[in-house]
């Protein structure tokens, strides 16, 4: 994967949506359990974003509304997209697992998984600590993921 210009604000919008929907969904869901069905929706959103930028709802929201309206400013950096895609995939898998527990009625487990995703999204949003990216680096380091990059210099 090549190092390319990349707007980090897309990630921030994605993390903000995740945190907002999970926290609000959880609070409302304490009184009205069917709100937990928001988790499968989030899972589809995350996994679709990994599959193709055309299906990346936060990206489209950012490009078509938030950025033109000046609500979120662009922050373009040059970096490898692969770790971020992997982190999104991990979040999507967690939410997909949460969705299965929603379907089977185990709402406590579903919300635990969702809160893990929300907490990790918060770490990335507030402190730029990308746990999924670190997982990616470790998997490359131990040889479980292939290396497809040029040396840093």
């Amino acid at each position: 994967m090549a190092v390319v210009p990349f707007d980090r604000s897309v990630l921030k919008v994605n993390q903000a949506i995740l945190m907002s929907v999970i926290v609000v969904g959880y609070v409302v869901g304490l009184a009205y359990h069917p709100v937990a069905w928001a988790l499968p929706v989030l899972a589809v959103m995350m996994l679709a974003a990994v599959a193709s930028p055309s299906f990346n709802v936060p990206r489209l929201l950012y490009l078509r509304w938030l950025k033109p309206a000046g609500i979120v400013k662009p922050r373009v950096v040059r970096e490898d997209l692969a770790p971020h895609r992997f982190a999104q995939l991990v979040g999507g898998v967690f939410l997909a697992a949460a969705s299965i527990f929603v379907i089977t009625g185990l709402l406590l487990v579903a919300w635990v998984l969702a809160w893990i995703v929300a907490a990790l999204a918060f770490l990335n949003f507030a402190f730029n600590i990308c746990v999924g990216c670190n997982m990616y680096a470790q998997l490359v380091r131990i040889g479980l993921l292939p290396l497809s990059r040029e040396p840093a210099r």
Partner: protein
Amino acid sequence: MILLLAPLIAIAAIGAVALVLRAQRGGQRELVGSVVEPAGRRGPLPSVLYFTGEACTICHTAQWPALRSLAGSIDPGIEIREIDIAVDPDLARRYRVMSLPTTIVLDAAGQVTEINVGFASGEVLRRQLVDAGMPVAA
């Protein structure tokens, strides 16, 4: 009402993972005082190993500028070697690097004297080089 436990369990789970990672870092501390790279394989002796990666933002925005500044103020004979963990995963494995950036200070014999996990300022690294007996004066 059992759902009220969900955030607490999630935070406990993340905390447990963080403790495991911390324990692994403890394992890295065991390297202090040992020679990880045999002399024959080392080539020119580095004094600071800088482990980085493309996705490590703080490496590029803070650690690398600090090292560049340090390099300009110390003896040119002291080598600062940059290692992309994706390019040289074997070396990262041998030094048990679990987090980026990591900087490791070696003495003249190649013995590990300090391991910094996370950002280390040029001032800290300079002091660690002095403590390792390296001729840091430019």
